[in-house]
């Protein structure tokens, strides 16, 4: 087994999370926004797994499983919303969604 300091695992999770955050802040294409949210959720899961590996317990991995379920539900609803949005406004640019009236 590897002799990896816990900080390095957490640092990887942190880097991936801020990359996802940058993606959410910069991109205006809704598909890229969803992908960036995926990256962020995955990074959070990595932090849980690293913490679970620190104590050698299953809890961290079980939290990853729950995050997996949350991600699956989020992606299903999010992509259905993307399809509905594209049907209505014919673009993926979120800047056009600036009025509440549909």
């Amino acid at each position, binding site marked *: 087994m*590897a002799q990896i300091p816990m900080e390095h695992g957490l*640092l990887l999770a942190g880097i991936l999370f801020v990359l996802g955050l940058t993606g959410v802040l910069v991109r205006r294409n809704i598909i890229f926004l969803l*992908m960036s949210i995926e990256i962020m959720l995955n990074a959070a899961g*990595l932090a849980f797994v690293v913490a679970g590996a620190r104590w050698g317990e299953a809890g961290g991995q079980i939290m*990853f499983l729950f995050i997996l379920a949350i991600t*699956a*539900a989020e*992606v*299903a609803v999010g992509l259905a919303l993307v399809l509905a949005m594209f049907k209505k406004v014919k673009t*993926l640019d979120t800047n056009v969604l600036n009025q509440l009236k549909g």
Partner: protein
Amino acid sequence: MNAVFYLSSILAVAATVMVITQLNAVHALLYLVVSLLSLAVVFFTLGAPFIAALEIIVYAGAIMVLFIFVIMMLNLGKESIGEEIHLLSGKMWIGPSLIAAILLIELTYIMALAPNQELGQTIVGPKEIGVALYGRYMLGVELASFLLLAGLVAAYHLGRKSQPSDEQQ
């Protein structure tokens, strides 16, 4: 094993950078698959082989295929790449990158303060996970199943063909 961890970490970060900077959605998606696969290797080196398998099967397999289906259904052509170039000017990157860099520095600082700890040497396999999941965490499993059912119903509702009564509104 150490070298494998660091190599796949670098690969994951590089692929993730490519995901958020690509203009073509399909290219970005393929880079995201590379990122998820290298993260699966990271999970494997951390002693979580079951999670590594799930990462490949569920993330790289199921969720990415959903994304690819939606991108194919939208039928994005060359004009969408032109639109992306229009949306992504170089100046837009400065502010968010600065905010993210400050956040990362804070995280690194907090981790540097903590006492140095090695990761445990144990491999936690599917058996331990299953025993804990259907024991202590049973309520969480039930709640996750509710969430997935809600997601299923919502996706069906949003994706259905619009009824004649909706058109009149």
